[in-house]
């Protein structure tokens, strides 16, 4: 699958945070976060209008507490696609 934009997810308290090459957005919910990612990508001017963009989001494994990582070091990866 061709990925246009790859974001690293982390969780700070109750907020989701996503980072990608100089861009950083946050949201109280994943829906809010994804809407903010879409806004940030539109504002960045990297993609042409009406282009379909595939976004990969992977949770930074270091956001899990160190003691819990041995049990399961993967949280989730997520793909979304939207039109600019």
């Amino acid at each position, binding site marked *: 699958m061709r990925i246009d934009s790859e974001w690293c997810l982390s969780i700070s308290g109750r907020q989701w945070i996503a980072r990608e090459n100089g861009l950083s957005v946050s949201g109280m919910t994943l829906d809010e976060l994804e809407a903010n990612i879409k806004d940030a990508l539109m504002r960045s001017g990297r993609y042409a209008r009406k282009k379909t963009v595939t976004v990969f989001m992977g949770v930074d494994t270091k956001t899990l507490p160190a003691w819990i990582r*041995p*049990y*399961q070091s993967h*949280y989730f990866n997520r793909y979304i696609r939207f039109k600019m």
Partner: protein
Amino acid sequence: MANDRNLNRRWYSGMLTTEDWWSVWLGLLMVALGLFSCFGIDLVGWIAEPKTWMDPAKGAVVSAEAYKGLHPILSIIVTYVVFTALTSIGAAAMKWDVKKYFWGFTIIFAITWIVWYLGHNAYLAAMSTQYDKFGISWSLSMGGGASYLLALGVGLIIGNFFKRFAGFLQEAAKPEWFIKVAIIYLGVKLGVKCMEAAGFAVELALTGAAATIAAYLIFWPLSYTVGRKLFKLPREWAAVLASGVSICGVSAAVATGGSIRSRTIVPVMTAIMVVIFTIIFIVALPPIYTATLHDEPIVAGSATGMTVKTDGADAATGAILDEMMVAKAAEQGETWEKGWILSASIMTKIWIDMFIGVWAFILAILWTTLVEKKPGQMKVPKSEIWFRFPKFVIGYLIAWFIYVGIATLAPHITDMAKIGAESVEGPMRHLFFMLTFVAIGIITDFSKLKGLGRPALSYAVCQFIIVPPIALIIAYIFHAGMMVPGAH
């Protein structure tokens, strides 16, 4: 593109940075060294192990004939150097604080060997048939189980009464890492046992798989319903708790938390409950099953695997149960080979571990297509199953099949192969079990349960009232009548 290397992006992500993979490397390294005995070179027989003793000087023996000239104290030092070096390399690769790890492991290793040795005192470990041999008139007759309980007790005292010290040791107190290495060594044992009882091992594996699937299709919906209806928990709490209590503890809770995109606080709090509640089973389940299931040892082992959460705690409970049931058989004049009851509990747990990835994948699909359907959300990638697959199982299966392969393809070197295998699946595995017991105790802090309220109650109801009887019934359905091979 983001270049964060902490993302699980490729299939090989984490091979040098996760404990799961490092258990495979450490496990298979010793398995490989053990195989040199096929060529007449013993590279693993230097390890020492305690034996039941009255004379303190005779409390430890070196594993293999080739190293009998080695003093046991020197053997313990070699063991310490080898495993400190290997695990420190792993710690460095995983970017831990290596200095802290080194000192922590050194102290844990010392505690482990002291309690391992003390636990083999004849008054604690000797069977009644050995009274004359040791010149005693009574004993608790606990076999190796005394060492395990002592190790757990010492760990718990440190973890709950010397918290600053426990904090210092935590960099090296890694029960899941230690037990995964031990389970790979157990794969060697199963391989060797297959040479003698292949049919039984296959039957154990197949019935274990069937029992696991049957159990979890019952446990999960029941636990979820109890959380939602009885304790009015939100969906994310009910789902994560249901996986934690019904599948395999912490791993399943984290996997489920990820699948349903819950905040990480939910699986983290669930994990705290899992870790603490399992301690009760480690202490309570072996004497209960030993007293009530003497005629069904494999049922007892399998039920343990389905009841006790986390690999470390399950292996710990299985190991104590194995020791206690074998000791009870000995008291009654029967000879049971050690390891089969433990294998039954581990086999069940391994199926469960493999099931976690599949279940998390199914749950993720259900959540994104039915519960929280969103426009733009794409299919759940199948790679999620692989990322959640317990990699140590690969090491366990490789170790197992290597010895099955030797027995099948090169039977003339079987006896030579057993020389190396005995040191790996014997003293080395026991050492890592002991390290696990001490480490479990150190990381278990009962005061963390404070303030968890309804989720803790929901977890407790499921863990103590729903899971054990169903596990026992299902274990009975699939394993009834299976006796430890070679029992006489």
